[in-house]
């Protein structure tokens, strides 16, 4: 059933593309119906998959001469990420309810992107995975360049170029792996058993891992992320930070680590304490955590604060992966889910609920608007999202980051120390943004006074309330009852780390 998430999304995209112009209301409801349908399938797949290992969903020969199959399968990691995609899709549609420009095309691109994402998470064939990965990039470009804001062409181009460079690296690695394996199959399951030579893994792993990690926002290849997030329309920011960055991290895990585990072995020599690719990427992850947090601390644009916070939070995912132990990788997967939900919520509040009413994202201007009084719903939604993002206990982020920290500590304690500094700075930037944007006592500027007396902000609409409730509720529920996801993630991670291919 899970495979139908992909077909449904693409079918929905096609229908919306063919919809006559001007039927904006119909387009919205159709998009919502498709997204909800996808979510329902994802939930059903998640529940049905509890306690089960990997299950093959579809296996059809596709390019027989090369051994390429249309092979869809799901294990615990896929099921959790598909669930995340379903949630992000529904929330994304809800927060795009006010799109009036070329509505049907917008939702067509949106659903095509979602379909691609579902495809990546469910592909167990290397080339199929790569195809879906590319399919996801194209709609992203159009969503930003047509419906975006601040320097949208520049941001869209930057995003596309970074993505393609990453894809090219991945593609070289994949072709080399296919050629080296000698087996006439591109199935991840078969390749996992191929047993590549260690020397081959040593150069292929960093290539593939870096290629995917670019999309995960790994420092120093992260710069597409903040500009892209800021320029994108709200729903696209939500998807970009919420699920597209997870594609990169997922690729790092499913392809990079699972196929080339020996690429992480020590080199046999060490240079200033760095003795393997594992050390290299872990250090980049820690730098990303701290750097992202520090840069977020000095932003003047509200949306950039959230943009850089994504870089910081994704650093935890990469760090957890590099811990290479049960608890660290489990934490990384949970952090993917958690950050997907929270980044979506934060971008929705900043980009949709606040910006569409105040028409500014400058913290200095928001300070004079007294939003806690005038937009109490936005203020309290941000309080909850901010607390969750800070990693306060009771929310999903706490359990995820705790596991990553524990896992990293078991390898090298100072990684944890570095990441811990990032958490402290994370509290600071979230809290600074909260204070400035919502709870400031600064005297109202003439402009703000005028607009305050001139007109009230538009009332909060039902899609906004529903979206916030959905995302915040999921984060809280997972935070209070993490086993709902951990019981599914843990066996899958165990199987993956045990080797023998996934």
């Amino acid at each position: 059933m899970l495979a139908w998430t992909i077909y449904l999304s693409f079918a929905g995209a096609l229908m919306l593309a063919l919809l006559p112009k001007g039927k904006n209301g119909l387009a919205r409801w159709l998009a919502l119906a498709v997204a909800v349908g996808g979510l329902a399938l994802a939930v059903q797949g998640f529940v049905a998959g509890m306690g089960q290992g990997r299950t093959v969903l579809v296996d059809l020969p596709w390019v027989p001469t090369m051994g390429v199959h249309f092979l869809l399968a799901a294990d615990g990691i896929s099921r959790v990420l598909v669930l995340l995609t379903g949630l992000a899709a529904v929330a994304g549609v809800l927060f795009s309810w006010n799109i009036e420009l070329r509505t049907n095309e917008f939702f067509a691109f949106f659903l095509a992107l979602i379909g691609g994402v579902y495809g990546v998470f469910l592909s167990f064939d290397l080339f199929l995975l790569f195809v879906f990965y590319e399919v996801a990039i194209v709609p992203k470009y159009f969503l930003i360049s047509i419906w975006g804001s601040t320097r949208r062409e520049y941001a869209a181009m930057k995003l596309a170029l970074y993505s393609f460079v990453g894809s090219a690296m991945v593609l070289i690695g994949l072709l080399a792996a296919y050629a080296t394996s000698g087996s006439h199959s591109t199935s991840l399951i078969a390749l996992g058993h191929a047993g590549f030579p260690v020397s081959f893994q040593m150069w292929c792993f960093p290539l593939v891992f870096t290629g995917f990690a670019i999309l995960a926002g790994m420092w120093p290849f992260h710069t597409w992320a903040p500009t892209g997030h800021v320029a994108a329309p709200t729903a696209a920011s939500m998807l970009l930070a919420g699920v597209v960055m997870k594609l990169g991290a997922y690729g790092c895990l499913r392809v990079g680590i699972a196929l080339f585990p020996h690429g992480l072995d020590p080199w046999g020599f060490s240079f200033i304490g760095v003795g393997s690719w594992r050390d290299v990427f872990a250090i980049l992850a820690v730098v990303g955590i701290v750097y992202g947090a520090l840069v977020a601390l000095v932003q003047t644009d509200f949306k950039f604060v959230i943009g850089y916070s994504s870089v910081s939070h994704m650093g935890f995912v990469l760090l957890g992966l590099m811990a290479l132990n049960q608890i660290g990788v489990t934490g990384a997967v949970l952090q993917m889910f958690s950050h997907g939900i929270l980044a979506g919520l934060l971008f929705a509040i900043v980009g949709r609920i606040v910006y569409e009413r105040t028409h500014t994202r400058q913290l200095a201007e928001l300070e004079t608007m007294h939003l806690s009084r005038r937009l109490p719903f936005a203020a309290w939604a941000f309080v909850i999202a901010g607390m969750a993002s800070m990693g306060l206990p009771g929310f999903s982020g706490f359990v995820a980051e705790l596991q990553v920290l524990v896992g990293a500590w078991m390898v090298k304690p100072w990684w944890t120390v570095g990441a811990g500094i990032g958490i402290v700075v994370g509290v600071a930037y979230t809290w600074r943004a909260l204070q400035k944007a919502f709870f400031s006592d600064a005297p109202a500027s003439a402009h703000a006074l005028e607009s305050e007396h001139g007109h009230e902000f538009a009332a909060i609409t039902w899609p906004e309330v529903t979206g916030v409730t959905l995302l915040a509720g999921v984060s809280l529920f997972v935070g209070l009852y993490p086993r709902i996801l951990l019981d599914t993630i843990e066996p899958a991670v165990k199987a993956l780390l045990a080797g023998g291919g996934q």
Partner: protein
Amino acid sequence: MSGFPILTLLTVLPLVGAAIALWSGKHARNVALVTTLASLALALVVWTWLPADGSMGMVERAAWAPSLGIEYHLGVDGLGALMLVLAAIVTLMSVDAAHRVHHQPGLYFGLVLLLESGLFGSFTALNFFHWFLFWELSLIPAFFLIRLWGGARRGPAATQFFVYTMAGSVALLVCFLAVFLSTGSMDFGHLTQMASTGALDRAVTAHLGPVTLWLAIGVLAGFAVKVPMVPFHTWLPAAYAEAPSPVTMLLTGAMSKMGVYGLLRIAIPLFGHQIAQIRTPLLVLAAVTVVMGAWAAAAQTDMKRIFAYSSVNHLGYCLLGIFAIAVPAGGAAVFASQAAALNGVILQMFNHGITAAALFWFVAMLQERTGGHRGIDDFGGLRKPAPVLAGLMGIALFSSLGLPGLNGFVGEFLIFRGVFPLAWVAATVSILGLLVTAAVILTVIQKVFTGPVAEHCVNFPDLHHGERLALAPIIGLMLLIGLLPQLIVGAVNPTVVNLLAHWRF
């Protein structure tokens, strides 16, 4: 009786109340009153159900996230149950006192009830994660209550409060992460047992090197901020003064006890041996807290700041008692002193909670009647126009001063009875604090209630019936505990003996 999840019910009840209050607008205070009354009734039930042998009662356990050592584990002994009763009484008083919240009452009372749930949760939790969840849960509403309903300089005060407590929380989290990595457990009971055999120290040393002492210091710092202990106290005067008085009642009456409770439930059981090693500097800090708190109170004219600093002073006695008992086992005489001091500390926590909350309530009443004045020089001769107010506030003030016959005396007496044989220098220095506090309190009484009636106070309205009715049980409780301290000590003593038997210094 056993098996009924009364502690879970107690924790969830205020959450439900908060949700209802949030949507009930003008009626929010009534919702909060009903909720806090019901909570108090439940807390009293917990108190009566306590096991007679001082062990953990009403225990609830359920798996939560086993891979992280996280468990849903609650239970109470005499210490926890007394804190539950205190939290319930103080929250009820605070809600009662807050009858003039016009700005967003639904949100206000929702946050107060959320805070109450945080208090209940942290006083019953027996697993670090579970406890930390509620510890943080109480911080957020407190921050917003100060930030949104506070006085003129509420912004900096709330920020300072938040930054200090958050820094303390991070220290606690880091230390517990280290403990978890070394032992694989976050369970207080299990860790206490490990500590009593020295296994905790060995495990930490084996995993992380000789850092146990530093972990002890980190945990102490986390709690020292909340109590507060010099030099971590600087957030307190601003927060207490800027918060609306009913919120100050909660901060001083109940939240400061979270710090002392944490020392007794977590720091001493897990790191008793390490604390014993640094006992002397800790006793110096405790004595400084006692004396400095009193001196600083003497230098203030704003009544809220006076009582804020005198809170620092009163909780200093608790710190003194806790650090003084950190001596290796040494026969019946030492044990008797330790037991006396610990009984005193627990009683003092309760007494200070009641008395300090009452004092801030009286300040709120004075402010209401004079349009916001609360300096000791703004009043004069109030005993003539408002004899009932003067009499009742006088009782509360004398209770704070530690007059025999009132509740404050018994706790402080027991602490000094226990501390003198164990650490006579610190005890002697702290006597200075008692004297200065007496002078401060007498100055307040003199300037506000006696002397010629100030001109604008001639028509000062006395307490009306509603206020008398609300205050009567509190004042009655002060007298009752003062005359029959056995009511509390009798129930707490088995717990004290039980705790001391499990601690290793």
